[in-house]
Each structure stands twice: as C-alpha cells, then as structure tokens.
C-alpha cells in the first residue's frame, strides 16, 4: 500500500505498508472524520451565532462552575496524590499492596458507577451525608459534590506520575543534606520537592484536564441546576436533548479547543519533566 520513501534508518523488517495503512485508515475513519464533521458543523453556524451561543449567560456560568470545581478537584488530588505516592514509596506497612491496587480503581470503575456510589454516600441519609448535612456541609446536588466526583475519577493521575519519580530518586543527595544537618522537612523542601515537582505538575495538569471533560460521575451527583450546578459537558447534553444542535455543536467545540490546549500544555510539561529527569 505504502512504501517507505524516507528510510532514514534502513529497516529490513516487512510490514510497514500494511501496518501504516491500517493505522491511517483507522485514524481517518474513527478519529479524524468525526472530528472534521463537528468542526464543519460548527463552521456552518457562522462567527456571530457561534459567539452568541458560547458567550450566553448560561454558557458562561457553566465555564465558571466547571473551572472552579475542576480547580478544587485538582487541589484535592494534588495533596491526596502526593501523600499516597510518598507513603507508598517511602514506607512499609501492612496493607500497602492493597492500597497500591486500590489507587487504580477510579480508572477501572465506570464513571457512572462512581457517580451512583458517591451520590448515595453523600446524600442526606447516606454513609457520609448523615454526618455532614447536620454540620451544614452539603455535597450531593452542590458544587462540592461535582468537585468530589471529578477528584474521584481523576485521582490516579498525580499518584501514578509522582510515584515512579520518587522511586528513582537516588538517596545520596538526601543523605548528604542529612549529614550536613538538614532537618527532614528541609530535606523534603529543598532536595526532594524540586526533583519531583515537574512530575507533580504534569500529574496535576492531567487531573485538571480530565476533570474539565468529566460527565458520567457528575450527572448523578450535581443535581443539574442551571447557573448553580451545571457544568459545560452537561449543558451540551441538555442542548442535544432539546434538539438544539447548533448550541450543542458550538459548546462541544469550546470543550474540544480547551481539551487540545490542555493536551498541548501537558505534553509541554511532560517534555520538560523528561529533560529534567535526564539532566539530574
């Protein structure tokens, strides 16, 4: 199908034509064509209509809520992730393997099931809700619930990016600092933290990006009130339900552009992290 016209390094192996052909065909049919269809659909709206849809009051409210709750979710995951990664790498304790396995649960458990479980736990009569609601902390059907749902579904990112870097950290620098009389906190702050920071940032960015697009878990717990607990992905879904296709296309386009920007950001951070790791 294709010969390899650019052999920078000669390979005697066969199969370039077939595998490349399958790859490109698949990517065109499954990825590129649907993406192009939506871009065309959005382009057919014209700039004025597109702009009025994506800057409508209700849309702006969803951006605020989505960005705000995703920021809280990322903060939760950044602290929780750092703690878990640290404890899993540095300490031995019974049940460590179980926790290490449990960390991947949010990626294995369908998001809708996570949403169902979380809304049940945090509802007024739920396992957590019965103690939290009397204290005035409302989670289910409130922005905090959205943040918790986002945090749950993107929890593994920070842990799984920081963990390998912490494991590879050679302890000579650390021991040198200790020998020179640095206190444990100073060792962490001045020796360990700078080395794990790029990975930590990459994990947090991945977590934030994932939270911005989350839908399955949120739809159960948010209560879906316009201007209060409505995230952008939900508004897209509601517009489709109302057969308002132009609005759905325009809002989905905004989400797509933000997703590409986040992909670019995380790739840049990861490239930086890689250079950083090679240097040290």
């Amino acid at each position, binding site marked *: 199908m294709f010969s390899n016209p650019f052999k920078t390094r000669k390979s005697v*192996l066969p199969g370039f034509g077939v*595998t490349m052909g399958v790859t490109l065909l698949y990517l065109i049919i499954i990825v590129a064509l649907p993406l192009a269809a939506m871009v065309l659909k959005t382009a057919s709206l014209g700039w004025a209509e597109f702009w009025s849809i994506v800057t409508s009051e209700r849309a702006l409210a969803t951006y605020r809520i989505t960005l705000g709750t995703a920021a809280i979710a990322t903060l939760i995951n950044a602290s929780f992730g750092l703690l878990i990664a640290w404890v899993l790498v540095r300490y031995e304790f019974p049940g460590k393997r179980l926790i290490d396995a*449990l960390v991947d649960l949010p990626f294995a458990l369908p998001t809708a099931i996570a949403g169902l479980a979380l809304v049940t736990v945090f509802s007024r009569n739920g396992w957590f809700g019965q103690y939290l609601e009397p204290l005035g902390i409302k989670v289910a059907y409130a922005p905090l619930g959205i943040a918790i749902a986002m945090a749950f579904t993107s929890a593994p990112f920070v842990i799984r990016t920081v963990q390998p870097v912490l494991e590879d950290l050679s302890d000579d620098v650390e021991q040198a600092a200790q020998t020179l009389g640095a206190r444990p906190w100073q060792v962490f702050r001045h020796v360990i933290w700078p080395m794990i920071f790029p990975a930590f940032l990459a994990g947090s960015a991945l977590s934030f990006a994932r939270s911005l697009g989350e839908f399955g878990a949120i739809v159960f717990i948010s209560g879906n009130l316009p201007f209060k607990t409505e995230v952008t992905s939900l508004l897209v879904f509601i517009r489709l339900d109302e057969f308002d296709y132009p609005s759905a296309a325009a809002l989905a386009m905004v989400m797509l552009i933000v997703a590409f920007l986040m992909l670019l950001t995380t790739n840049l951070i990861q490239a930086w992290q890689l250079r950083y790791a090679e240097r040290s």
Partner: protein
Amino acid sequence: MQSAASLAVGRPSVQAARTRKKKRGFWQVALILLAVVLSALFLGVPLAVVFAYAFGSGIEVFWREITEPTTLHAIGLTVLTAVVVVPINMVFGICVAWAVTRFRFPGRRLLITFVEIPFSVSPIVAGVIYLFLYGSQGLLGPFLEAHDIKIMFTVPAIFLVSLFVTCPFVARELIPLMEVQGNEDEEAAISLGATGLQTFFYVTLPNIKWALLYGAVLCNARVMGEFGATSIVSGAIRGKTSTLPLQVEQLFNDYNTVGAFAAASTLAFMALVTLLLKYVLERRAHG
C-alpha cells in the same frame, strides 16, 4: 554445625537491629495512618457502598433485579460491545506499535500524538462528533438517509464510539515496550528466512503478550463502562440500545435503587477483576 550454631546465636542481634531500624517516627506513623484512612474513605467506601446496596436486601432480591429482562439485555449488549471492540483495538494497537517502533519516518511523533487524542477528549464531545457525522443533522446524514442506512441510535453506533474512546489503550502499552526491545530479534528472524507473519507470531508476540493483554484489559474496562459517549449515540433505548451504565442511570432515575445497584455491582465486579488482572499482568510483564 559450627556455622549453624553461630547463625542461631547471631539471630537475636539481627532481629534487634531490624526492630531498631523499623522503629517509626511520629510523622511516619501519622502519614501512614492518614494515607490509609483517606484511601479507605475516598476510594474504598464508594466501592463498598455498591456491593452493600446491591446485596443489602438479600440475594433473592439481587437475583430478581439482575434477571430483569432489560437489565439482562443491557448485560448482553455490554459484553457484545466488548467482544467486538476489544479485538479490533488490539489489532489496531499492534499495527500502530509496529509502524512507529520498527520504522523511522517523518511525522512519527505526530502520529503517536494523534493516536492519543481520544484520551484527552471528553466522552460528551466524543458522542457529539459522532452525532454530527452519522446523525440526520450530520455530515453523512443525507447520504445515509438516501441509502436507507441507519447508524445513529443503533448498536453499531455504540461500537463506533467505543472504538473512538478506546483508540490509544493497547497502542500506549505496546509502543514504549516495543521501543525498548528494539529490532534485533525480528531482524535476525527475517535474515534466517522467516516470513513477516512468522516473525510476528514466533518472535514479537511472545515478547509483548503480557503488555498486549494488559492493554486489552484496560480497553475492556473502558468499553464496558463508557457512559457519556454511549448515552448520546445510542439513544439509550431500553431493551434495545441501552448498555449497563445507561441501564444503571435509568433505574436510578426510576427510583429503583436496588435495581440500579444490582446492575452497578456487575460493573463494580468487572472493575475488581480488572484490578486483579492488572496486578497479575504487571508482575508478568516485568518478570
């Protein structure tokens, strides 16, 4: 004898040294406790609540809910989707990995990034782009209607959108592994006269089988659990195009909590099996 005796004598002191080394500081104990408690509350409880509510009313009730015809249909459709999508994704993943790790060509990095795109796209957006390709309002809509082909709100639409969301799953496991392994083994096989397919099945496949299976397990979990994209393209017609996660939502919206949790527990069980397989396959993959 001599050495055994000295070994026995030596033991207490070794043990003492070990306990001394094991003595934990206050902060260490505090951090471990905090980590254990938070993981249990944040990750363990949501899993536990699914099984607690599913079986809370007894096994007979659970069984009655799970064998309810539309739930049974949803289970069947979910399994069928996985059976169709996972093998296709495996073939695609092997093709991508072979092309980008065994050959060097301009645009190679770009191709890998392109494969990763579906991973960064929201499930809702994934559903929407398929709607605007195959739906009546979509790019191919008029053509499909003219030829009386219906894709949107049918089972094939679920297959297609599942192929989109799982696009990178097998490839991203294989690419780093095959990159590290290099070409030497395959080149040796080819120079000894093996055909391309023989080389793949007898040389490459044994080296990548655990990573391939691992990717397939993750792909399967995503296919069975996909919610946002499927809810848009399937139309969620009960007993027809409703997969398990959609069925769970519908039962929940009907205030049928036991039914929702019974259906949900099958997916939670699938998640547990996924974690177990992940654990086993990771150990195999790393020797």
